[in-house]
């Protein structure tokens, strides 16, 4: 019997998030294979910029998954947000207002899915799948299925400018979004309710939490983040494309899961999600930098994803002593 007792003090390597091991190995491999082209400050900034849109989107995905839900409409919301912002700009609306409208369109979509899920009691998978069709369709209809371009100075600055001539704006936006969600998640009642919804929804309801309302708020927030991601994406490209967000919801969910957030019991958090997003961004960037032919990139990305996730699950089991 005594052999089953575990020491209370965990070894240091058991406290490191599993995804960090994978990330570390990959970074070292790229650093060696690229003969110095990968391991440079400018390339790291590149990776951060490339990952920033996905991070904003993934923050929303993580919050929804923490409530044991899922949001398949995030990719469409991203597309729609960019389309709304750019279209308004081409009609002569002030850039700032147009960008806010893009974000607002995300909040609007999120409110509808939230209503369908919390009030209409639809399963999240179905409600957000339906919204994904609506959002993607609305974007295609609004743009008449072709790309729309806009380049007012403020808009371009938002996508590719540098704050104080130093920090690229997408990174600043992603950092601000992370900070805001971090505050909400860990320092407000709303955040506690998000974890409670995932941990034990019935229990939370019985102890007086208005579960329907906070569920609605979670999807509302995720939708808003999707809108921000969409405007950011459009600002980087100086354009809105009607299918740009296709499959992005899956990337966001994958980043969340790789980061150690679980579909069950409200376990995980947004710090892991940052690592998950980094892993995806690093692999995509690194494969290009070391010159892997595009033909093989999807295959390698798939393998890395699966290995990272399996490693996460196996390490967690080990860490919990199961």
């Amino acid at each position, binding site marked *: 019997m005594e052999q089953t007792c575990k020491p209370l003090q965990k070894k240091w390597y058991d406290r490191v998030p599993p995804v960090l091991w994978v990330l570390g190995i990959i970074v070292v491999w790229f650093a060696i294979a690229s003969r110095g082209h990968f391991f440079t400050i400018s390339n790291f900034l590149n990776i951060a910029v490339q990952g920033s849109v996905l991070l904003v989107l993934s923050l929303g995905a993580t919050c929804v998954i923490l409530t044991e839900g*899922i949001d398949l409409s995030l990719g469409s919301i991203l597309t729609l947000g960019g389309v709304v912002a750019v279209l308004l700009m081409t009609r002569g609306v002030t850039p700032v207002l147009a960008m806010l409208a893009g974000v607002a369109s995300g909040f609007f979509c999120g409110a509808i899915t939230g209503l*369908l899920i919390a009030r*209409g*009691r*639809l*399963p999240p*998978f*179905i*409600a957000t*799948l*339906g*919204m*994904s*069709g*609506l*959002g*993607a*369709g*609305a974007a*295609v*209809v609004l743009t*008449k*299925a072709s790309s729309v371009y806009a380049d007012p100075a403020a808009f371009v600055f938002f996508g590719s400018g540098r704050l104080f001539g130093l920090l690229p704006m997408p990174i600043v936006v992603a950092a601000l979004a992370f900070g805001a969600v971090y505050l909400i998640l860990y320092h407000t009642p709303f955040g506690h309710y998000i974890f409670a919804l995932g941990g034990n929804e019935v229990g939370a309801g019985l102890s007086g939490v208005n579960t329907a309302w906070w569920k609605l708020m979670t999807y509302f927030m995720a939708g808003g983040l999707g809108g921000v991601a969409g405007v950011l994406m459009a600002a980087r490209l100086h354009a809105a494309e009607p299918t740009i967000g296709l499959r992005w919801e*899956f990337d966001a*969910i*994958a980043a969340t*899961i790789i980061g150690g957030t679980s*579909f069950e019991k409200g376990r995980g958090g947004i710090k892991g999600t940052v690592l998950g997003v980094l892993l995806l961004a690093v692999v995509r960037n690194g494969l290009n930098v070391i010159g892997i032919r595009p*033909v*093989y*990139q*999807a*295959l*390698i*990305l*798939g*393998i890395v*994803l*699966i290995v990272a*996730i*399996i490693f996460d*699950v*196996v390490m967690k*089991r080990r860490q919990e002593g199961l």
Partner: protein
Amino acid sequence: MEKTMPARIEARPLLADFVTRFSRLFMLALLCVFMAFVAPEFFRAANLLNVLRSASLLAILAIGQTIIVLTGGIDLSMGTVATLAAIMTAWLLDRAHVPVPLAMAAGLAVGAFSGSANGLMRAYIGLPTFVATYGTQWMAIGFAVVMLGGYNIYGFERSFRFFGIGRVAGIPVPIFLLVIVWLLTWFILNRTTFGRRLYATGANCEAARLSGIDTRRVLMQAHILSGLYAGFSGILMASLLNSGEAGMSDQQLLPAIAAVVVGGASLRGGQGGIFGTVIGALIMTLIGNAMNLMGLSSNWQSVVQGLVILGAVLLDQWSRRLIGQE
């Protein structure tokens, strides 16, 4: 009072079953009536057979998806696995000049193999299906692109094209194939021990395991079976389009899931059947056809599909509430 209780408990699910089935058929009928007024050419035999043929490919994929949904999972890799199977078959036919039956068997084997990979990751490693199948999706895309090496494959021999565009007694072959798959799956799900175990595992995995079912094995078998269907659907697609190209069946994934959902299978597992799924696939295909006939721009397609998914499920919930379930 106590004596009447069991009777009522038994009666309710039966009624609910009837209503859910009925609400789907009702939607289908409504669509047809609507078409009769808006675009009478919808009812020409040629158009109907065309719709049924495209619905067949979608329905076969959706039946495979239903099997996974019944176990309480979801398979995101089905579209790309179908593509990979199609490309494997096309490659063997075109580049290696393998006989048609062998090439098709290889395509099916690709489907079964991908399914077994999903099953392995889900049942034995313990990944959520969503994640496991997402990874498989990328791997399948990757293999497909590598096999094609940047070129598409066009033009197959006649005996292979028969499966996609052939007709027997004036009726397209895929419709017959769908009926065969449908009957076979119905038999497997409702008349075999495996089928019963599958429903039990989907409804409550822990309870099924405690009552002596090897749930891991059941899940593994379910994924292999559904992989076979994905492969089959992909092969038919290659035969129909007379080509093998990257991404040919990828867009079928979401309509297939939508068909399952519109068909009334519960995403929590253990509830639903393939009859609803076939109706769902019909509805999804009909909508596309209806929009074409009415001259609506295809831009509106996904808006309408989204509305139909939401509408069907809301209708279902409303009808259940009406008869006092839930």
